[in-house]
């Protein structure tokens, strides 16, 4: 079931086309992501979908209903976490959550109970009474996410959820996102971190200069860049002496011996593994592992967009941020 659909969505700012006729949809229960460099139009699209920017052309639908001209009813079903905090500095964490709940018409008892539950889930109980201005950047982002879901929206928009956040908090936030997804929240996130997109999103769209250049599940996108079928074997002995014999036996395959006791087999089409395993076994080379080698999403992204990953955050963002490396959990 499609929660959000955008058709031909276009945005111009005084003649400059920031978003150029994009089409996409978000299915219920999935994490859908926009991956693209700074200035690609990600935030502008979120703003159009959520009512913070006017739609120049095209249309948007929520649960099949067009809301291009009247966003207010649709907003009740949306949770929005902007790239920069928009909570109240002078209110405490808990007060901010309760206030946000009230904006969606939640009764006092309900919003307070839900705020307390979220503070616990997001490990912010200790900081709950402190004013928001005293929070660290990472805590602010976590609270902003909690504020985004207090009214249990149909869809949660996360604009660059880990940008500008230090590694430890970024990891926590990614875990929270996965957790929310497991509990059934539909999530639309934008990022310029390739690894983050690969790790979190089920479906992705690459967006460059206001256009979606490719869209699909992570697997589908990977397949595009797959030049060859590659299987890498980890063997219990030295393969180097057997190369000639191997070529004679499997003429269609290319081989590439690794540094250690590994060897990669390349073939133009998928191939059966058993004969290969038998070949090694017969020559007293036990096979410990056979692994299909896929291209990384990074390769795919570079191939399709022609943008090098290090150019992704050129225009803004602290230099010290190196993306989500080291945040693998």
């Amino acid at each position, binding site marked *: 079931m499609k929660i959000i659909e955008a058709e031909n969505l276009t945005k111009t700012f005084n003649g400059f086309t920031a978003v150029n006729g994009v089409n996409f949809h978000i299915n219920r229960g999935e994490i859908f992501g926009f991956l693209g460099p700074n200035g690609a139009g990600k935030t502008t699209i979120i703003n159009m979908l*959520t009512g913070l920017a006017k739609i120049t052309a095209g249309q948007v639908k929520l649960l099949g209903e067009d809301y291009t001209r009247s966003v*207010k009813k649709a907003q009740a079903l949306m949770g929005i976490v902007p790239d920069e905090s928009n909570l109240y500095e002078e209110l405490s964490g808990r007060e901010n959550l309760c206030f946000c709940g*009230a904006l*969606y*018409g939640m009764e006092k008892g309900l919003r307070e109970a839900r705020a307390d539950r979220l503070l616990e889930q997001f490990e912010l109980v200790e900081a709950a009474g402190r004013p928001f201005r005293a929070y660290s950047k990472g805590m602010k982002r976590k609270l902003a996410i909690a504020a985004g879901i207090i009214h249990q929206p149909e869809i949660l928009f996360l604009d660059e959820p880990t940008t500008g956040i230090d590694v430890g908090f970024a990891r926590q936030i990614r875990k929270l996102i996965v957790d929310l997804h497991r509990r059934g929240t539909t999530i639309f996130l934008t990022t310029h971190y390739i690894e983050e997109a690969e790790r979190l999103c089920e479906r992705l769209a690459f967006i460059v200069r206001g256009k979606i250049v490719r869209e699909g599940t992570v697997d589908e996108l990977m397949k595009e860049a797959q030049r060859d079928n590659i299987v890498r074997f980890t063997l219990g002995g030295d393969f180097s002496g057997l190369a000639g014999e191997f070529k004679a036996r499997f003429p269609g395959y290319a081989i590439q011996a690794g540094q250690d006791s590994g060897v990669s087999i390349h073939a133009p089409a998928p191939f059966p593994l058993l004969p290969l395993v038998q070949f090694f076994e017969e020559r007293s080379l036990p096979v410990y592992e056979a692994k299909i080698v896929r291209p990384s999403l990074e390769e795919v992204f570079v191939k399709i967009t022609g943008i090098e990953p290090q150019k992704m955050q050129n225009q803004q963002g602290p230099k010290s941020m190196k993306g989500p490396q080291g945040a693998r959990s």
Partner: protein
Amino acid sequence: MKAWIAFGNIFMKDMRSYYLKPPNISWGLIFPIAWTLMFFLRSPVPLEVRDLLPGVMSLSILFGTTSMLAVTITFERKSRSFDRLLLAPISLNLLMLAKTTGAIMFGVINAFVPILFASFLTDLSGINWPLVLGSVIFIAITSTFLGLFVAVSVSQVFEAQTFSNFFRFPMLFLCGLFIPVADLPVFIRPLSYILPLTYGADILKTAVNNNGVLSLSLSFLMLLLFTAFLFSYSIYNVNRRWIL
């Protein structure tokens, strides 16, 4: 119902965050007290106090309300928390009413500070209190929406203050508060009649001293028109400038 929960909480948050904060309470009171002292203490004849009362009340409301909106709206816009409100599922009209109700009440309270002072200095008998209350509320609404009009037309808090003064100070002289409009040079008089406070002050004069010069219904009608214009223009401006 849901929208009213949002309305009430936006209003209450502003009350707690701005209006009930000690610096703002004193700030809010400084204007009326300053005006009151400035005019009343200078006039030794008790009767003159009553003559000045409508003008002082009007100014207290005007300065009290317009200065608050620079904070509750322009400042929140700048700190992005106003976006949070724009993303909420309540209509822009209701949102703006929620953001201005506090200022309107603040203005009404401001108006009674001079009355309190005056009650020690002179005899307040014979005042048409219902009419005083009605006009005070109307002036508070119109002034608040004038503040709103300014607050949504600028981007910086200091611009809001400067721009407000552009309206406020001329009103001091042109609205017949202390100099009757009839005594102004003929070519300036039309200006008086395009300023909302002229009408509000005139109603107050009628209520306090029964010496207003315009008909009550005309004055109320004019205030109503100003209110409607300022509010709808403000909404239009928010739509145009803040929802890009």
